[in-house]
């Protein structure tokens, strides 16, 4: 059961359980116990599972460790400290050493000093970088606190000798649990934890999380099925100073150049009003672009910190993101801690709790797309208790203005968007079953029960589980070939390991993070974005494509760099590249629609402009200038056509002289819009047999087609009940499925990234995965790994669950449809039409497509039949 702890313990309670040495140390460092400590330390001491949710800088880590250090120090003094792992600490970050130094080694040194003699408490770090010699040492003398990553934990549990050190662990701490729960790393970890609990039955689980929702789900993810968990939600008021800033007076009228120039002038201003500024962009390439532009626009003010010249004393700005070298990132972190940088630009890599010293201002360039992410980013400022959090969102365009303003409102009113935890991932399951089989022979029934202990698999259907067992046992190929494929044997209700290579295969291919390589797109010398190798392969010279909202013409590629020039106003010839974009959260999208609904009511009631602006001003916590800009934008749409809102979906029909567009104004975020647009396009294709283009963004989507099509009829044919079946067919030929199939094939050990000492490049993996996908389709269209790839696309990449709710609401008429016809796209439709299409639904089969292309060739090159 999940229970919320709402009353903290008294400081006396903590004093009562803490060893005198620990207490002396604590009071030498801190004046008093923090709120998270008052809530959490006692429970952890009593070995009760607990989830602590608190903002960054709220002493969460020490809350987790205090009781554990207490136990270790106490045992050491009483001479009963055993040679075993007492606590496993798991963090999603690989770069742990700095933080551990600060959070554990230093305190331990200080405690030993107070104690007067060494305590013999060992801290060990085991990650992918740990050397064999270090591993040996750990085996001989297991660390009392073991610091590790989810991937290394899975390996240790599979290593015959290390497993013994993990018997009877007392505590396990999951740091930054929110960052793990929402992806397959977390799913993988949830099974590793069950494997750990199997050999450490009394383990107490501790989760440390940033502000996140719903806490119930995260708590269940932490502890697994049918176990108790205490939840502590410490959102004490770190005082918030949050604002939305527009770089220009009128974001509607400003030209691209003006907006760009003024944005950087504003950033420059803000940087110089503060000591250290942390700037977040939404993409890695965006990070590069900001650094590049600040350097070019203000050449004397900023000199970039680079790898090549680490001794440069006057470096003032640095970039930090996942594609940069580890050395570069460490250097930037170090410079930040020493206060040597004026500004640091990052994408998502600095969102997590890496120690980066004092930051007094956080800038989000463009909407951070979710309330939780914004709070997380903002929390990096004033990274100390009781300090003011100062953060600014700078808007990029008019949709962004509305989005940021509503986001700010939700953040201040603490409406946190819900996080999505992937469920029943068959590829991760396959990998972990191999690992379990490597431990020992196990009954299939016992295994099934063990798996369902994980929250991510609590509803795993037995037949899906058996499909994975059969897959791993090679039962999809004939008996004589089976030895090649089988990683387990399956006989008389039991399974066990099979094949002498299986252990090595697991050890070298464990984990869930797919290999990705990015091709940098450059306009002259300026990096403007990133695309992947497969996308590049399809580009021909002269192709126009959309990247980050702007059109570019492809010139040529050299190695991993693609060169383009600007193609303003030209029509894209290939779908826009969107995969790197952060999606708007569904909940925030609904809030935006709710706001439109409110404004709609007010304008309809003939309220004056002044009063309406004053409403927006009060409702959204934005200044008058921004309120007026929002008013102008919304009013323009109101006068031109109509406002979409939670109860009314606006469908705009527009003909551009070539194609018909049906634009759906649906601010549900791109994950939902991806589903809805494909479903409608598929329905059109099925009933009227035509290829249909789809275009999506966070605020709506469109379907476009040649000739006349009855879109509303196609929509009415679409039933929420059939949505999944329709979508599975609709994505069958899509790029996104092809890419995700590769990831799933790697995770389920069908494609071995590392094998016989060789590592496969991403391009090679993709080629293999295409052949593999064709081959498994010949076996069955429901082959378990293909099925998982489809599930991942529909549930994790897209959001079929909420799309289904929207469709259901349309069927129930709780959402009504309003159709309008326009001669030019309405204001709300502008961005969407400009960005171009993202995919074409392939309705024809391969033979029909060839026939059509042949007819086209005959017409174009005048070939005689």
């Amino acid at each position: 059961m999940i229970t919320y702890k709402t009353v903290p313990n008294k400081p006396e309670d903590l004093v009562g359980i803490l060893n005198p040495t620990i207490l002396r140390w604590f009071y030498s460092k801190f004046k008093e116990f923090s709120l998270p400590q008052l809530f959490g330390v006692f429970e952890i001491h009593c070995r009760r599972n607990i989830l602590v949710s608190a903002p960054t800088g709220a002493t969460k880590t020490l809350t987790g460790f205090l009781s554990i250090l207490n136990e270790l120090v106490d045992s050491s003094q009483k001479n009963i400290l055993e040679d075993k792992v007492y606590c496993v600490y798991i963090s999603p970050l690989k770069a742990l050493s700095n933080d551990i130094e600060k959070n554990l080694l230093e305190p331990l040194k200080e405690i030993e000093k107070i104690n007067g003699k060494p305590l013999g408490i060992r801290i060990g770090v085991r990650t992918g970088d740990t050397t064999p010699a270090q591993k040996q040492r750990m085996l001989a003398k297991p660390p009392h606190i073991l610091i590790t990553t989810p991937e290394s934990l899975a390996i240790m549990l599979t290593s015959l000798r290390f497993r013994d050190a993990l018997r009877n662990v007392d505590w396990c701490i999951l740091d930054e649990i929110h960052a793990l729960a929402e992806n397959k790393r977390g799913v993988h970890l949830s099974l590793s934890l069950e494997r750990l609990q199997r050999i450490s039955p009394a383990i107490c689980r501790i989760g440390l999380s940033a502000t996140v929702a719903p806490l119930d789900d995260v708590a269940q993810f932490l502890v697994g099925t049918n176990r108790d968990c205490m939840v502590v939600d410490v959102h004490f008021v770190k005082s918030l100073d949050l604002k939305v800033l527009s770089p220009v007076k009128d974001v509607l009228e400003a030209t691209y150049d003006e907006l760009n120039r003024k944005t950087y002038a504003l950033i420059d201003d803000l940087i110089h009003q503060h000591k250290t500024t942390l700037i977040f962009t939404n993409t890695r390439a965006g990070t590069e672009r900001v650094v590049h532009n600040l350097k070019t626009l203000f050449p004397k003010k900023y000199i970039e910190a680079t790898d090549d010249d680490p001794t440069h004393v006057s470096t003032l700005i640095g970039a930090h993101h996942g594609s940069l070298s580890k050395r570069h990132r460490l250097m930037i972190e170090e410079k930040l801690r020493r206060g040597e940088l004026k500004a640091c630009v990052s994408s998502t890599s600095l969102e997590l709790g890496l120690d980066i010293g004092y930051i007094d201002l956080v800038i989000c360039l463009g909407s951070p797309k979710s309330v939780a992410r914004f709070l997380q980013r903002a929390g990096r400022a004033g990274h100390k208790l009781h300090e003011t959090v100062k953060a600014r969102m700078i808007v990029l365009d008019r949709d962004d203005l509305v989005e940021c303003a509503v986001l700010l409102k939700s953040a201040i009113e603490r409406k946190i968007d819900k996080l999505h935890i992937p469920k029943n991932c068959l590829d991760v399951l396959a990998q972990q079953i191999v690992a379990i089989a490597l431990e020992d022979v196990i009954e299939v029934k016992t295994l099934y029960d063990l798996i369902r202990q994980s929250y991510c698999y609590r509803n795993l259907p037995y037949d899906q589980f058996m499909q994975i067992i059969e897959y791993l046992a090679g039962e999809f190929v004939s008996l004589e070939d089976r030895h090649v494929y089988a990683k387990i044997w399956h006989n008389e209700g039991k399974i066990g390991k099979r094949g002498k290579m299986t252990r090595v295969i697991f050890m070298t291919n464990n984990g869930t993070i797919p290999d990705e390589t990015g091709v940098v797109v450059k306009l002259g010398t300026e990096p403007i974005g990133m695309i992947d190798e497969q996308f590049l392969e399809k580009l021909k010279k002269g192709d126009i494509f959309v990247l980050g909202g702007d059109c570019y013409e492809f010139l040529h590629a050299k190695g991993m760099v693609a060169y383009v020039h600007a193609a303003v106003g030209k029509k894209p010839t290939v779908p826009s590249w969107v995969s790197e974009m952060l999606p708007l959260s569904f909940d925030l999208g609904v809030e935006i629609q709710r706001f439109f609904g409110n404004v709609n009511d007010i304008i309809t009631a003939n309220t004056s402009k002044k009063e309406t602006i004053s409403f927006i001003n009060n409702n959204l916590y934005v200044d008058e200038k921004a309120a007026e800009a929002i008013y102008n934008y919304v009013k323009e749409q109101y006068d031109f056509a109509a406002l979409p809102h939670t109860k009314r979906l606006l469908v705009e029909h527009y003909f551009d002289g070539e194609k018909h567009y049906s634009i759906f104004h649906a601010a549900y975020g791109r994950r939902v819009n991806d589903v809805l647009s494909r479903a409608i396009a598929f329905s059109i294709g099925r009933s009227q047999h035509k290829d249909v283009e789809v275009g999506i963004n966070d605020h709506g989507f469109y379907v476009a087609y040649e000739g006349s099509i009855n879109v509303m009829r196609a929509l009415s044919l679409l039933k929420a009940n059939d949505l999944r079946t329709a979508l599975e067919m609709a994505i069958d030929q899509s790029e996104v499925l092809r890419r995700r199939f590769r990831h799933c094939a790697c995770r389920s050990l069908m494609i071995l990234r590392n094998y016989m000492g060789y590592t496969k490049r991403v391009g090679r993996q993709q080629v293999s995965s295409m052949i593999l996908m064709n081959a498994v389709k010949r076996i069955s269209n429901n082959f378990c790994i293909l099925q998982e790839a489809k599930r991942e696309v529909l549930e994790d990449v897209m959001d079929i669950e909420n799309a289904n709710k929207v469709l259901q609401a349309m069927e129930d008429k709780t959402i009504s449809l309003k159709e309008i016809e326009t001669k030019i796209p309405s204001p709300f439709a502008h961005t969407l039409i400009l960005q171009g299409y993202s995919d074409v639904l392939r309705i024809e089969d391969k033979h029909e497509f060839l026939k059509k292309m042949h007819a086209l060739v005959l017409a174009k090159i005048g070939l005689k039949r």
Partner: protein
Amino acid sequence: MQLTKGISIMDLGLCIESNLILADIHLGYEESQNRKGVLIPRVFYKALTERLAKSLEGKHFTSIILNGDVKHEFGSIAPSEWRTILSFIDFLRRYTDKIVIIEGNHDPLLKHITAKRNVSLVEHVSLGNTYITHGDVIPKDKEYEAAEIIVIGHDHPAISLRKMARVETYKCFLKGKWKGKTLIVMPSCNLLTEGSNVLSRKALSPFLKDREDCELYVVGDNIYRFGKIKDIREKM
């Protein structure tokens, strides 16, 4: 579809009078991928024989000629190659009394397998004015000099066609000129991969140094004539 007098395309094969030619089958491809850590299930042999059985049903050929690269692994004989190559020879005997295999560059060890069925390997086959060879090297013999039509494989020609966001790749035949002779290039019979796109990939065969003037015959449910490579490149 007839390519020239007496020579016509039949699905992935080429008929010369009453002889059938198949090129670049690459049996054992899956196992070689398996050895590299890609666990492709072995579905190809079944798919190939089913497809051939459909197009060859009720027919009888004077000879069936396998134009090189019957086997995939260069340096060893994989167990699945033993199995499938022998069964494939047995399968083809339903449709002919004479099987001829032209040695391809992947086939240095093939003779050990084919010997079990008394099929020997040759470097080329001449049928009237037509000279059939794998295509990895340019022959120097007299029959070659005298031939008017050359048939090769080796290159696995395919074409990627794109319309808006959709790209599909199809196997294709090429027909062009080589030093005054007519040149016909056959697609690969391997069903796991389509082949290499003639619009973007470099040719491997010395016969195809300049293939821009070659005409394309694309294999789908029918054979479609697509004109010259350079026209497709420029106009599509």
